[in-house]
């Protein structure tokens, strides 16, 4: 049972990180294209990772 929970946790963490980077990185990328400010992509990616890590903590670190 614990091993299955671990597998769940690994893939959930991976999923959160991937979707955080994809979504907010994507938003940042289009913002950087639109406003012609390249650093906005970086800000988007950092925002995505921050959100993802916060979600992971909420889900697995709170108990």
């Amino acid at each position, binding site marked *: 049972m614990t091993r*299955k929970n671990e*597998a769940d946790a690994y*893939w959930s963490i991976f999923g959160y990180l991937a*979707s955080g980077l994809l979504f*907010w990185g994507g938003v940042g990328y289009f913002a950087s294209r639109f406003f012609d400010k390249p650093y906005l992509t970086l800000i988007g990616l950092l925002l995505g990772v921050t959100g993802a890590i*916060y979600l992971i903590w*909420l889900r697995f670190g709170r108990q």
Partner: protein
Amino acid sequence: MINLHFSGEGFVPPSTNDFNLPPIFENIPWLTKPVLLVFLSVIVVSVFFVLSARKAAVVPSKLQFAGEGIYAFVRNDLARDVIGHDFMRFVPYLFTLFTFVLTNNLFGIVPFLQFPAMSHVGFPYVLALFSFFIFHYVGIRKQGLGKYLKDIAFMPGVPKAVYILLTPIEVATFFLVRPLTLSLRLFANMFAGHLLLLVFIMGGDYMVHDSHMIMKIFAPFSFTFGIVLTFFEFMVQCLQAYIFTLLTALYIAGALADEH
């Protein structure tokens, strides 16, 4: 040593082109080897389990023992332990999924068949879509559309302003990343495994036929490594079938749970 003279046209390493197999009959373009193997796997799985369940006895035959062993594994270790209460509803799907994926993966190392159909990304996509619709469907049926979506999108215990940051990530995880990782993990493992075997077996074959003596001497090492990797592939193939089914069960369990 540096100026090794190679005869012939040089080694052509295996590439993605080795996965694009020609149609078996000239005039039926869709009937390729992977398609045929998928049909074969359905027949193999059906025949195996019909035979193992027929003449079921209290003292099981070897065949019945094997069939019941696989069934018990999926029912107890995957469905019951993960989904818990009311798990029997999902056993048929999980069992079909596990045996279908496992058989198709194992075809990758069965002599003469030797091609994992799941290394064509279309097959895992369809399987992941099934799992995707099933776990969302049972979640919506159990909790109602509004509550289900609210549970996905809004993690409890967070200040309201933070939802702007978190909600898109959660929604993307549930509706995009989950089905994608489910299918791509299976696809990539089968694809890479098949490519790895091709490299060593084809490489060994090339080295044997090379006129240079050094190449002939080292050819057996390439073949040996190919055999070692075949055993490794066997492990990966079983593991990937297990992981695919396990994650599907976990997603169903998550959709049924009142709070995730």
